[in-house]
Each structure stands twice: as structure tokens, then as C-alpha cells.
């Protein structure tokens, strides 16, 4: 008992009672986050698998749909997300150095970029709505040969980008929490685990988009 009391008595910031020391806690958090990201890879993997199957079944139909994708907005959003990954890295870097103002500045920048992405995504969804490209009874497609097959592509488009956008929204919520925590001086150079973990999450969500953009927008576009 005396042993464990002694360990607990040393107050390390953010250390929870069931861990021996901060190093063990950081190991656990990091591994836990990576395992969580593995589950996310499998989650999106199911949809990428379905995409692969249908693309190989209906290559012409899938190629024809890319003419209705807004490549300009997609490309801008790709740039926005890559830049937001950079600002997220800078936020983690600032946390390592214990620079509170810089943490908040970079987190806010990341948050703004995330919101820019979501706004542009909304514009795109609205275009699809206007063009009757939402799967369902109201779906219309210009090329009568591919009505059903194109609907599957748009189904996957909305499922994949929708799930991605949902992850972005969660990310925006997490960034807001981080900003509040940073403003309350919760992070020090010795303990900034949440910034690092949510950074990992943010990069993961960005990488998903890096795969979505070419698959949904670019393949077959020049034809």
C-alpha cells in the first residue's frame, strides 16, 4: 500500500490513478488511439471494398459519373485539408514547446479550415440535389444506359463523403474542446496528450479524403 501511495502522491499533470507513471499512460493513450484508427480503417474499408467491386463491374458507368463531379471544389478541398494537417502539426509542435498562444492560434486555424471544407462540401451536395443526383426515387441520370449503375456510384459517393464529413464534424467538435482546454491552461510541455491524439485523428480523416478525391472525382474524368 505504501508503495502505490508514494507513486500516487507525486503529482504528475494529467496522470490517472491506475497508471504507474506518465510514460505508461502516454504509451497506453497512443496505442489506444492507433488501435482506434485501425477500426476506422476497417470501417471505411468496407465502403472502399464495395466501391472496388462495383467499379470493376460497371467501369463505363462509373467513368461517366465523374463528369458530374465538381473537380474544382474537390481540388480546393483537398488543398484545404492538406493545409489543415500542416496547421494541426504546428499545434502539436507548439504544445511540445509549451507555447499556449501558438497552440490556440494553430488550433483555431485548423478549425476554420475544417469549416471551410464542410461549407464547400455543402455547396457540392446542394449541386447534386439540384441535379437530381441524390439516390432514391427522385434520382435522374442523363445517360439512360447507366441509370441504375450510376445511382450505385452516387450512393457510394454520398455514403463515403457523408461518413467522411461526419468524421470532420466530430473533428471540429474535438478541436473546439481542445481550444477551450488550451485557453484554460490545461496543457503544459510535459502533458499535452489530447492535442497529440486528436492530431492523429485529424490526420486520419485527411488521409481518407486523399483516397476519396481521386477515386470519386478524377478516375475517368478526362475521357
Amino acid at each position: 500500500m505504501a508503495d502505490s501511495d508514494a507513486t500516487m502522491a507525486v503529482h504528475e499533470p494529467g496522470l490517472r490513478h491506475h497508471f504507474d507513471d506518465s510514460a505508461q499512460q502516454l504509451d497506453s493513450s497512443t496505442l489506444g488511439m492507433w488501435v482506434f484508427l485501425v477500426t476506422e480503417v476497417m470501417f471505411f474499408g468496407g465502403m472502399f471494398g464495395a466501391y472496388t467491386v462495383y467499379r470493376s463491374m460497371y467501369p463505363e458507368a462509373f467513368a461517366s459519373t465523374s463528369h458530374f463531379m465538381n473537380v474544382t471544389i474537390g481540388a480546393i478541398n483537398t488543398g484545404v485539408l492538406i493545409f489543415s494537417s500542416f496547421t494541426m502539426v504546428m499545434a502539436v509542435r507548439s504544445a511540445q514547446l509549451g507555447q499556449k498562444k501558438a497552440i490556440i492560434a494553430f488550433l483555431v486555424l485548423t478549425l476554420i479550415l475544417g469549416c471551410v471544407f464542410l461549407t464547400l462540401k455543402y455547396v457540392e451536395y446542394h449541386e447534386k440535389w439540384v441535379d437530381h443526383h441524390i439516390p432514391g426515387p427522385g434520382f435522374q441520370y442523363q445517360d439512360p444506359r447507366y441509370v441504375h449503375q450510376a445511382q450505385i456510384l452516387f450512393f457510394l459517393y454520398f455514403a463515403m463523403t457523408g461518413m467522411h464529413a461526419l468524421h470532420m464534424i466530430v473533428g471540429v467538435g474535438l478541436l473546439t474542446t481542445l481550444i477551450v482546454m488550451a485557453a484554460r491552461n490545461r496543457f503544459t510541455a510535459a502533458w499535452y496528450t489530447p492535442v497529440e491524439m486528436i492530431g492523429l485523428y485529424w490526420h486520419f480523416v485527411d488521409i481518407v479524403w486523399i483516397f476519396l478525391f481521386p477515386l470519386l472525382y478524377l478516375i475517368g474524368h478526362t475521357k
Partner: protein
Amino acid sequence: MSTILPSAKTETRPNYLNVDYGWKSWLFTTDHKRIALLYLFSITAFFFVGGAFAVCMRLNLLTPEGLFAHDTYNKLFTMHGIIMVFFFLVPSIPATLGNFLVPIMVGARDLAFPRINLLSWYLYIIGGVIALTAIVQGGVDTGWTFYAPFSSTYSNTHVILTALGVFVAGFSSILTGLNFIVTIHTMRAPGMTWSRLPLFVWGHYATSLIQVLGTPVIAITLVLLGLERILHAGIFDPAVGGDPVLFQHLFWFYSHPAVYIMILPGMAVISEVVTCFSRKAIFGYTFVAISSIAIAVLGFLVWGHHLFVAGQSMYASMVFSFLSFMVAVPSAIKVFNWTATMYKGSVSYETPMLYAFGFIGLFTIGGLTGLFLATMAIDVHVTDTYFVIAHFHYVMVGGMVMAYLGGIHFWFPKISGRMYPEGWAKFAALVVFVGFNLTFFPQFILGYQGMPRRYAHYPPEFQVLNVMSTAGASILAVGYLIPMIYLAWAWRKGPKAPQNPWNAKGLEWEQSPTPPPTFNFEHQPVVTEPAYNYSGEEQEVELG
């Protein structure tokens, strides 16, 4: 009842049960042992709900004409399957015994993420309530497999609500797996090397890998299914260009590995019980440990054997058939090693050991008939017959539920601090064994003779075997009720358990008080010997 004198309490040390009694101390607890008990009570409730559906099915099959309308029967077998698979079998051992024991066995004060552990229980309950709501609203009739396009387009029952319940409960399973993986990697006590980990922990590590890698795929599959149903747009419906076989691939990519979620923890329990009651170290520790991982890995590569008659390419089927045979190798290694452990051991016949015997025999039958089903030509004959039903009930009920009951008895003194009545327990184990075999062995014959699964009616010549099966089911039900009664009694009134009633090896018996205090150990546990060192001389274990 006379008043209890204060002196009677002098011996009680603070433990996880008596630190606090308020309802808040249970519903907001982050103690893995209390969460294990929350799970224990909730999955027991779901077990009886699922069991009630089974009772209705067996009553229906008592006569060739049946009792219920066809639509009702479709709902009965669907809800039996969904409740038993997703709300009982998947969480059964990992979320109760695993939750209670994994941290203690590795020498940690709690799981790595105690609040996530509590969250997983709440997700389980939310998912369960959603599924129960769907049942109360009128149920679902797709079969537990949710096959499209019936589920996505044609069924007029509560598919989306049920799928949502399964989806939410899936995240509870993912979080449990994540917690175990991290705990086993980062929270082991000094001296607890990977090669000294109890096989219980190895089994749960393998289970966790499947939970983490497989469950997200069923989650997204159910999302796609729900979207198709809501939007009325085809993705799995062949009428509009979709591919229903893709649904089956995605579904079984999780659900075949998931049957290993439903057996590996059972094997983990049996490894502990067999070595303890043989008073002998496990035969071939490394092989048993690695075979768990091998089952988890190979288990991800065999899902196609559910699609032999679904229009899957013949060449794919051949590969899946071969890989399915491969899974038999690590499974057989376990069975051989358990028997070799007993060979020349000092075997005694306490209740947990009786369940272990039952497990080994019944799992072997269930496993070997699995090989029949992995053989493409035989599978064509017995696909969707009672042969399949009997096969997987031998593994799931004869295997997993036996192991679960064995484990509950083995660790009951640890969990409750009391002993259960050995005579009643042995009697119940016997009743369960007899009832189980009478229920499911006739189903092998029925299936081989061609009785299809999921039908409310059957030709009169199958009646004798069906009556035997129903009679067995009633015996089995009694066998499950008896432990409920005496365990509830023993929890209050049973004789106090010593710290290590079985003289078993392992941190949970040797270095943690019974019942354990909130942080599991009074001193930092240190491991100085290999696992299951039953034959070794008494080691100098510091108990202070």
C-alpha cells in the same frame, strides 16, 4: 431475523463490493470489476430473452403443423439469433470474466481506459434497448444474417431499428477489445512477460484483435443496408444493379471471425480450468498461446465458406474450403494439448472441470462437423439444414456456454467471496450436458436427412427426432435455471471463500485478496515464475 452483531463484520476487509453501496456507485463506476458485474447481470437477462424465443421455437416444432403462423416463426428464429449472437455470445465471456480478470491477471489496477470501459456497457445497454424496442414493436423477420435484398427492400418488419441496435452494441464490443489490447500491451506487472501471460489473457488478446478488426466492417455494412432501405436506392438489390452477394461477403467478413469471438474466450477459460484441476502445467504453453492468435488470423480468411451455394466463384470456394480446413489445425492443437495436460495429471472433478470435460467433447463434435461443412460437396447437401444448426450449436452452446458456466463457477469465489454449493453445481452440470445433447444431437440426423432450417412446418416422418429435441430443450432450460438459483443464494448465504479455494496458480488467486479491493492488489504484484507452475516447488512469492 436477528440483528447482526458488529463483531461479525470485523474480518471483512474493504473490497470492491463493500466500498460503496449506492446505485450511483454502480452506474457511474469505472472499476472494471463492477462493470463486469453490470455486464454479467445484463447479459444474463438477454440470455433469458433469447432463450424464451428458443422455447417458443421448440414448442412450435413439437408437431409437424406447428403452433405459430409462418410469419411469427420467422420472427422467432430471427430474434433468437440476434439476441443470442449480438447480445449474449459476443459479450458473454470477454465482457464479464474477461473484464473482471484480464487486469488482475496481468497485475494492473484497472483496464487502461476505465471510462471507455463504462461507456462500452452503456453502449451495450442502449443497443440492447433499441433491439428490444424493435421486438416489442413487432419484431424483425430477416434471420440474424439480415440478407439483402429481403432485408433492404422486401421485409416489412423493423429492420432498421434492429440493425441500429446491433450497430450500437457493436461499438461496445470494439471498445472492450481496444481496452484489452492496450491493457495487455502496456499495463503488465513487473515480471509478467508475454511468455508468462496466462492463456486466459492470450485468448482474450486474440478475441480483441477480431473485435477491433471485424466489428467496424459489420457496422458499415449495416449502415449501407439502412441507407438502401431509407433511400429506396439499390446497392445490394439486384433489381437495380446491386449485388446481393456483396452483402453476404461484407456480412460474413465480420460474422465468420465473430464466431471465433464466440469461442476463443471459451477456450481461454478451459485452458485455465484444465490445468488447475489436473494440478499440472499446461502441455505446450507456447502452442496453445499461438494457436489462439492463429485462429484469429485464419478466421479472417474463411468467410467464403458461407457462400458455397450463393453464386461465389468455384475457385474462390476451393480456396475458402482449404483455408477452413486450416483453422482445424490450431483448434485441434488446443484439444490435444488439454488432453495431454490431463494425462498423468492429478485430475479432480469439481464443477468447473465437469464443464471443461463437456466443453472438450462437445467442441470436438462441433469442430469436426465443421469440417464436413467446409467440404464443398457435402456442404451442398447440408446447406441451410438442421445439420448446420446442430454444428454451430455444438460450438456456441456446447462450447461457449459450457465454458462460460465453467468459468462462472471457477471464479465465483473470486468474484463474490463466497463458495457455491458443489453438489447442486455438479448436478446442474450433468443436467446441462444431458439436456444439450438430447436437444442438438437429433438435429444432426434431421439435417442430414434433409430437414431445412427456418421452416415452421416439417414432414411427419421427422416428428420423433423433433420431439426428442424439444424434450432435450426443456431439460436444458432446467439445467440453466438451477445455477441461477443456487448462485443467487450462494452470493448472499454461501460459506466465505478462502483467498485461493482451488489452490490455483495465477496472480488473481495468489496475490490478489478475495474479493479483490478496488485497485486489485494490496502490494505491487511481482511475477517470479512461469504460468501454471503447478509441478514446481513452492516459490518464494512475496505476500507481505
